[in-house]
């Protein structure tokens, strides 16, 4: 590895860390303004430039929050397991940040800086050409479970413990639908590289949300659950568990947990856009090839970030539109709805894909035909789920229950 390549990586890492942390801070402000808008309040709009009366829509709020968090007391309660207690926020933040190494922020930037040894054109991803990117994301997002369990266990608090238990069960339950949703995309694109998945959508012009609607639904629901956003925020539901696994945390350690959570949401938005919404591709605007001019390259970056922004807005709107699930409904949704739907999607996508290769369907009507078949399967699955009603279970305490009526499993 040459020095120039190393410096390129370092510059990318610094830009990425700065950009992502700033983005997370300002998305917090956006979320608070949005919450205020939904609830007919004004929201944080007063912090501007210090010592002046200029307010600029509260854009100084994230900076003020950061300073406040740093100046707070760094407090460790007496009853905790000290090493684990400090380790948990570090683990969860490092895992949440490292995921961004394989996420492309655009395609390429065709500029010649005149430096020898620099790869050219510059690829807008920290670790370019990572052909197991999907596995890297899976592995690192699974480490988040360790952070949650470490935090909940080390806190030695009943709220934390319950939050960590629920959280671990939820995260591992929704990892299966997440994997099934991605597997359908991998079968169709034939690669685990996120850049290759985007270019597969760009060259065919059919985004995977159009080609695999069922897989998209399964993946989006699982991504919401993995990011622990409402309606899946059971790990830390304030009304029942105070703060869940971070009840005993305060000051900068709490900040690390909160930032990591926001980063999970941003990662989920990036994955939804890259896997199902065509990444940087937009019809008639960005082109599809590997060779791009400067204007097109910038357009691709803007299209990708615009899509990610819209998906994050969707996350925030859904937070204020849906009530939280009960825990048994959450588990039923994961195991009895999403997992079978994911399997159905995988099998149908694989069979249709195999038929296309076996019968050599290359005509102009073959793609729309196969996609129509996928939409039919999606509709059918929806109707079956609607009639079976697996989420409706009578959970009220039943006084007239006889002893032999109790499930032998319980």
């Amino acid at each position, binding site marked *: 590895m040459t020095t120039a390549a190393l410096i390129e*990586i*370092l510059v*990318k*890492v*610094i830009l990425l*860390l700065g950009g992502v*942390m700033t983005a997370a801070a300002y998305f917090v402000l956006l979320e608070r303004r949005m919450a205020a808008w939904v609830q007919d309040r004004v929201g944080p709009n007063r912090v501007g430039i210090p010592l002046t009366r200029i307010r600029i829509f509260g854009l100084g709020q994230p900076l003020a929050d950061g300073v406040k968090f*740093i*100046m*707070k*007391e760094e407090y460790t309660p*007496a*009853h905790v397991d000290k090493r684990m207690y*400090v380790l948990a926020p*570090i683990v969860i*933040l490092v895992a949440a*940040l*490292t995921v*961004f*190494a*394989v996420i492309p922020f655009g395609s390429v930037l065709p500029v010649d800086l005149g430096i020898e040894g620099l790869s050219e054109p510059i690829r807008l991803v920290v*670790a*370019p050409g*990572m052909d197991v990117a999907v*596995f890297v994301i899976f592995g690192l997002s699974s480490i988040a479970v360790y952070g949650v369990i470490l935090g909940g266990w080390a806190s*030695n*608090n*009943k709220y934390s*413990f319950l939050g960590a*238990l629920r959280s671990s*069960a939820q995260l591992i*339950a929704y*990892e*299966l639908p997440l994997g*099934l949703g991605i*597997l359908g995309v991998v*079968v169709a694109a*034939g690669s*685990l590289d996120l850049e290759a998945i985007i270019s597969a959508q760009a060259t065919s012009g059919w985004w995977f949300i159009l080609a695999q609607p069922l897989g998209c639904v399964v993946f989006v629901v699982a991504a919401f659950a993995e990011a622990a956003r409402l309606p899946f925020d059971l790990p830390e539901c304030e009304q029942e568990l*105070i703060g869940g696994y971070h009840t*005993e945390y305060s000051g*900068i*350690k709490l900040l*690390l947990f909160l930032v990591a959570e926001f980063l999970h949401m941003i990662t989920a938005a990036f994955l939804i856009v890259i896997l199902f919404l065509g990444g940087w591709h937009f019809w008639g605007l960005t082109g599809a090839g590997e060779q791009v001019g400067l204007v097109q390259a910038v357009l691709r970056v803007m299209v990708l970030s615009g899509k990610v922004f819209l998906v994050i807005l969707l996350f925030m709107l859904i937070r204020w539109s849906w009530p939280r699930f009960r825990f*048994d409904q959450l*588990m039923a949704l994961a*195991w*009895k709805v999403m*997992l*079978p739907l994911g*399997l159905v999607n*995988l*099998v149908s996508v*694989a069979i249709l*894909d*195999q038929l296309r290769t*076996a019968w050599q369907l290359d005509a102009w009507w073959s793609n729309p035909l196969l996609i129509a078949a996928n939409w039919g399967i999606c509709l059918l699955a929806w109707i079956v789920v609607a009639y079976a009603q697996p989420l409706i279970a009578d*959970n009220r305490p039943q006084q007239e229950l006889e002893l032999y009526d109790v*499930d032998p*499993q319980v």
Partner: protein
Amino acid sequence: MEPGLIPILILAAASLALAVGMLALGSLLGPRRFGRVKQMPYESGMDPIHDARRRFDVRFHLVAIVFLVFDVELLFLYPWAVANKDPQGLPRIAEQVGQGGGFSGGLVFAEVLFFVALLAMGFVYAWRKGVFRWR
């Protein structure tokens, strides 16, 4: 070591430095005050009765086992998903074995479908056993 991994390791090291640096900054700049009540676990103002680390419901354990089974089995499908269409993958093997070898993409696909069917059978078994029932 795989050269593609180096940027990921650098990013991991940088974010570790960021996290540790923020914690250090917080402990340097923040005030410190201690108190006997402040050191108690927070339980909405009640005095805690016992330790938090108690026995919990066995169904969490069942879910963990079922997760392990399905996750590992799903992992086996990824190599097929990548090798299926890659010209260096299954098509090349089929070409090398030739017509008489009895190897084709269709056969592999049938095996994959059989594998998924086995997975679905395990899933139905766990469902019938009541692993997914919470109440």
